């Protein structure tokens, strides 16, 4: 497929460490380390991985909130985005702190248009449009964020992201602060918007149920590196990377009865200040052999399923 929406090539975010003797020592924290991937138009890519694996950092770079320190990122919109409209928008996990409590909903959502110099009348029409798209009544426009529940606020955040007519929305754990009964509604809303507007999501999540539901492809990060990148159907049916498998095994599921102990991934994610040599996962990997601690595995397609890529010397 040609002309992807997003192309990331060997992208890194290495953060110089401050503190006693650290800066001068040149120690860098590898938050994201040589990640390469592309996203097609309309495609939803889920980013999964344990806390500290670099998901948000990568998402911020995609959303233009943060600069990479190496590699490149290219976004090719399918249409012109004039007047400061951005093809990429972001929504955050916490629907409470994301909205300015002193502004009305109309002003919050219309803010990007105000910055483009649109007058109040034009803005109002568009605000009502996006409110409707996220299933909120027009009256909401004149109210303040604290008058809404968590789920409603997340709808408002989505409305604010939609108003600039983006092609890609970076969603950083948009559901994890919400109750289950509200999660499913926002999830349905997000898939609706995706279907109707052809929007792509760069969807950061640690909930595999949610990922299964929304993602077309899945990227698995560990210590800033891409471990596996594959279509959702394939990665859920046959995870190729031992880390992906471990993550999926750890997900609690209804219908298995009481858990059997002892099949869990041991230990914790090591510090990105001093990542393990070779394959960064080798310190916790049940399949590790000698080569794993010396040679960094490349992200390569599986022979049997070429759309599925994994960085492992002993991939399945």
């Amino acid at each position, binding site marked *: 497929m040609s002309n992807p929406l997003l192309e990331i090539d060997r992208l890194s975010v290495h953060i110089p460490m401050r503190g006693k003797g650290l800066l001068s020592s040149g120690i860098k924290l590898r938050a994201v380390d040589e990640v390469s991937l592309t996203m097609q138009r309309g495609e939803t890519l889920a980013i999964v991985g344990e806390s500290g694996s670099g998901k948000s950092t990568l998402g911020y770079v995609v959303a233009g909130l943060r600069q990479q320190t190496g590699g490149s990122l290219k976004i090719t919109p399918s249409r012109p985005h004039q007047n400061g409209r951005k093809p990429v928008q972001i929504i955050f996990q916490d629907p409470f702190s994301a909205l300015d409590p002193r502004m009305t909903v109309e002003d919050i959502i219309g803010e990007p248009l105000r910055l483009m110099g649109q007058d109040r009348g034009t803005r109002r029409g568009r605000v009502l449009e996006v409110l409707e798209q996220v299933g909120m009544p027009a009256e909401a426009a004149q109210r303040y964020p604290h008058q809404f529940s968590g789920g409603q606020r997340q709808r408002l955040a989505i409305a604010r992201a939609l108003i600039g007519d983006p092609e890609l929305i970076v969603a950083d754990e948009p559901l994890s602060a919400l*109750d289950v009964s509200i999660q499913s509604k926002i999830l349905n809303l997000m898939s609706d918007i995706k279907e109707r507007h052809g929007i792509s999501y760069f969807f950061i999540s640690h909930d595999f149920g949610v990922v299964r539901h929304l993602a077309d492809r899945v990227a698995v990060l560990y210590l800033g590196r891409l471990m596996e990148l594959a279509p959702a159907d394939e990665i859920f049916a046959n995870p190729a990377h031992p880390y992906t498998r471990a993550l999926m095994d750890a997900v609690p599921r209804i219908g298995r009865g009481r858990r059997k102990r002892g099949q869990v991934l041991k230990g914790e994610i090591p510090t990105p200040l001093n990542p393990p040599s070779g394959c960064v996962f080798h310190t916790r990997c049940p399949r590790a052999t000698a080569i794993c601690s010396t040679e960094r595995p490349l992200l390569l397609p599986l022979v049997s399923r070429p759309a599925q890529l994994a960085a492992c010397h002993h991939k399945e």
Partner: protein
Amino acid sequence: MGLNLSIDTAVPASSAFGSGGAAKVQRPGNQALLEVRELTVSFPGEGGSRSNVVSGLNYRIEAGETLGVVGESGCGKTMTSLALMGLVPTAGNVSGQIMFGGRNLADQKDREWRRMRGRDAAMIFQEPMTAMNPVMTVGRQIAEVLIRHEGLSRRDAADRSVGLLEAVGIPSARRRADDYPHQLSGGMRQRAMIAMALACKPRLLVADEPTTALDVTIQAQILDLILELQEDTGMAVQFITHNLAVVSELAHHILVMYAGRGVEYAPAEKLFERPLHPYTRGLIATLPDPDRKVAKLPVIPGGLRSSRSPGCPFAGRCSLASDICRAAIPPMIEVEPGHHVACLKVSQ
């Protein structure tokens, strides 16, 4: 993980439950370790009225058993647990009976609560920092509990706290004992809090969303740890979560709460095989399944809000609701052995 909670150095076997092990817990007949009857917690509401955040709750937990308590945010899970520990904020009023080891805790004096907490029953939280002192090393905090409740010497208590940190799977425990809570990762802090809670081998562990803030991998480790400790000591566990999948892996019995009330209470297998209450069914159906993709997830309409109407608290969101549902609050009825439901349409 070499688990050994009976690394007693010079521990007098004086605590209420002896030196551990389910076999030691003497209970006449089928009296449960914990039996909660008509538990109600109320707070002052508008205009001098009182509003119940927990209403008429009934359940029991046997020694060595886990009860999972599930429900949406605000349904009263934490308040129920705080009531068991005598920790309801002073504005709150607790009524009903909390029978623990044959005694009704609801009439206890503050002094008795203090003596009981940490020794007979202990609680762990989602955010370990709420239970830990940020300016005291973790080893010292555990030692303090042992000194206070078990009368250990400072030196013995220090040794024992290292043993406990080892038992909950903290690597290089002797060194880690000298760390302050903020120096530990989230998962390690959770382990340290569990070590502190279990220092005196309580008969009941109340766990309030202890894995909610953790990665699935670390969550799995902590769930395993709780199972292991339970097998080892025979403690009863009340595990609170909004995540049905988590309790399905841990609990023997499940209590589903809605708006402060129990709406379904059943053995775990029964509840997941055949959920009866419309709310429970909704909760299970709305959970996106990692093993199966569906075009559109079912949803429970509306949201949890306090209802002033006299009927079933779920009526405003229930697709089966009819006029009879709005007439009176449906009582919990045992529709099959052990399976209790508070829904008129089910019990009819």
